[in-house]
């Protein structure tokens, strides 16, 4: 849906696969994040900002550690609101 667009999301790190990080999206789908992760070790939840090169993968440019605990349900709702009815409220 957002292929070739700049996207941002928070994933739960599940593992690594051939140099890319495999994570779980806030709506429980699998995502592959390519690119160069930061030198610091990744926490459980990481925010990635980059270009979506397919439905299921992101070429990440910025990685931010979000810690060990995160409410994915609320974040998911936020994403839905931000792209839906209340789009105009978000930059």
């Amino acid at each position, binding site marked *: 849906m957002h292929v070739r667009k700049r996207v941002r999301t928070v994933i739960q790190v599940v593992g690594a696969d051939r140099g890319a990080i495999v994570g779980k999206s806030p709506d429980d789908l699998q995502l592959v994040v390519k690119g160069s992760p930061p030198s610091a070790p990744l926490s459980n939840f990481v925010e990635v900002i980059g270009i979506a090169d397919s439905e299921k993968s992101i070429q990440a440019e910025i990685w931010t550690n979000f810690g060990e605990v995160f*409410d994915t*349900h*609320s974040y998911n*709702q*936020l994403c839905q*609101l931000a792209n839906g*009815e209340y789009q105009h409220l978000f930059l």
Partner: protein
Amino acid sequence: MPVNLTPNAIATINDGDVNLKPLVQVLDIKQMGSAQERYRLLVSDSVLTQHAMLGTQLNDRVKTGLVKKGSIIQLIDYICSQVQKRKIIVVLNLETIIPDCEIIGNPKMVSDAPAQNALPNTNSMLLSTVGYNNLSSQSHGSNMHSIRPALSSQGHDGNMQSFRPTSSTQNQGGKMHTFQPALGAQNYGNDVQSFRPTVQPPYQPPPSYRNHGAVMKNEAPARIIPINALNPYQGRWAIKARITAKGDLRRYNNARGDGKVFSFDLLDSDGGEIRVTCFNAVVDRFYDAVEVGKVYLISKGSLKPAQKNFNHLKNDWEIFLEATSTVDLCPEEDGSIPQQQFSFKPISEIESAENNSIFDVIGIVISVNPSVPILRKNGMETQRRILNLKDGSGWTIELTLWGDFCNKEGQKLQEMVGSGFFPILVVKAGKVSDFNGKSLGTISSTQLFINPDIPEAHAVKDWFDRGGCDVATMSISRDIVQGGPKNEARKTVSQIKHEGLGRSDKPDWATVRASISFIKTDTFCYTACPLMIGDRQCNKKVTRSGNSRWQCDRCNQEFDECDYRYLLQIQIQDHTGLTWVTAFQESGEEILGYPAKELYLLKYESNDTRFADIIRSRLFYQYLFRLKIKEEMYGDEQRVKITIFKADKVSYSSESRYMLDLISKDRAH
């Protein structure tokens, strides 16, 4: 499909047959009176109609439409009762055969002289009833002889035809005896009795003949009926029940002189309960005879409306025993009658209960306080003990024991809790009180059971062992000290003013998410009395006495060290507005993070700037405040006073969900 009603059913029942189990049709249903829920029916056997009354246990059959006008029903348990010259059939159990049917035949109202009706019907009656009388089983030859003339005088020769061949001799008894097996059923059919012109006794038990002839006194045991079927319109009744409670012997003095009274409660196998009361001479007869837990057969008492002020059992009636009443102990244990019957409600339900309502509760005793003597209004001194009960709903309530309960059960519970056990307590008939939030108290009819062997007790113990003990206690008692009743009514600051919260008789509760914008530091705490009154700290403001000591006016004592307790004036603010609230010790500590004494010493004795830093650092923190809002008189004017009961840290996760929820609700309209 046409159905045949039992021919002559009405007449048969009127004559005393209770085993016919006839098919009759309901012609009419009326509700009796406005106070009681009782249905009156008109039933017919297609030829005659008769008034009948439905036992209250069958009321829902009418309500659900199983029994309505035109319904064909089979009477299963019933008796025919004489009420002021009229016969009324009291139906205790029935089955609906056909709920909807056109009226069969052209039935006429039966007249009030049953004996006459019996005559034309006897033929068919003998044919239709199952068995024959059991005269032979108990008879003596002479009796048979004496009965015979009565029979023939009524012209039942036709019937006796069947007996004739064998009854030609005087020695009827023997012949009848041999006749009996051929007939089969030992049915107490009462056919013979019905031919006698005397008034029917309502019950037709096996007649016990004495040697002196036809005088029949019905001394056979009356039929046992369920307690719920008891009503004053019945003739004789008998109930078999267990005593669940026995009241104390009370002496009284009124205009008619001195008297004494005592009561006991009964429970039968159907779960019906009723109170039995004895006055004066009757007390002497039965007081020592009745014991709690034993099963008794009780009969010949009078039924009167129950006094709901004292009698909290679920029954409209109360039994009053008289000189002629009988109370017989049943020696064999009747397993079908439970030992006790409870209707437990969770403690959380008590919060919304009315003051003075009666409840049964079961819970774990988590704390027991010592007995204190209390002076009552009439000058008498009694004991009072407060303990705390917690149950599966997670709530805790204060239970006040009065009088004897303090010494007996109270003492035992204190020992158990003191040794580290958490006993299960069942309170039957505790009274809800509005004092200090909601609490329970014992009354004279309360019963306490410690660790009873009932399934509910095991369930509570399981819950407790599995972690129930760790569930944070939320108390619905103790209005002030511990967090007030959980009231999740979310408000914004401006809503407090706009909705005029706090202006009614009772305080309003609200939850507000706001930030602290200012803390007044001039007087942020006070010197409090540290002494204990009962189980609570006195906390009254103490005054200096001398140079180094403190004096409490309430406790009337002096001491060196006083307690410091918070009394904070805080300004809180959210996106709608700001308001002043007061925080006491518990919430104060939560907000500031330091004990009051420490800050006091810091400000007045050591480091003033450090104190200011600490205060400043607490500003703009967001909390979920649980507020109590009440209007109070301040001098001449009414002011709305807001107090913080709890200041909870905001959980971002749940707050987000709450707000998302608000958004979706908003979206809906």
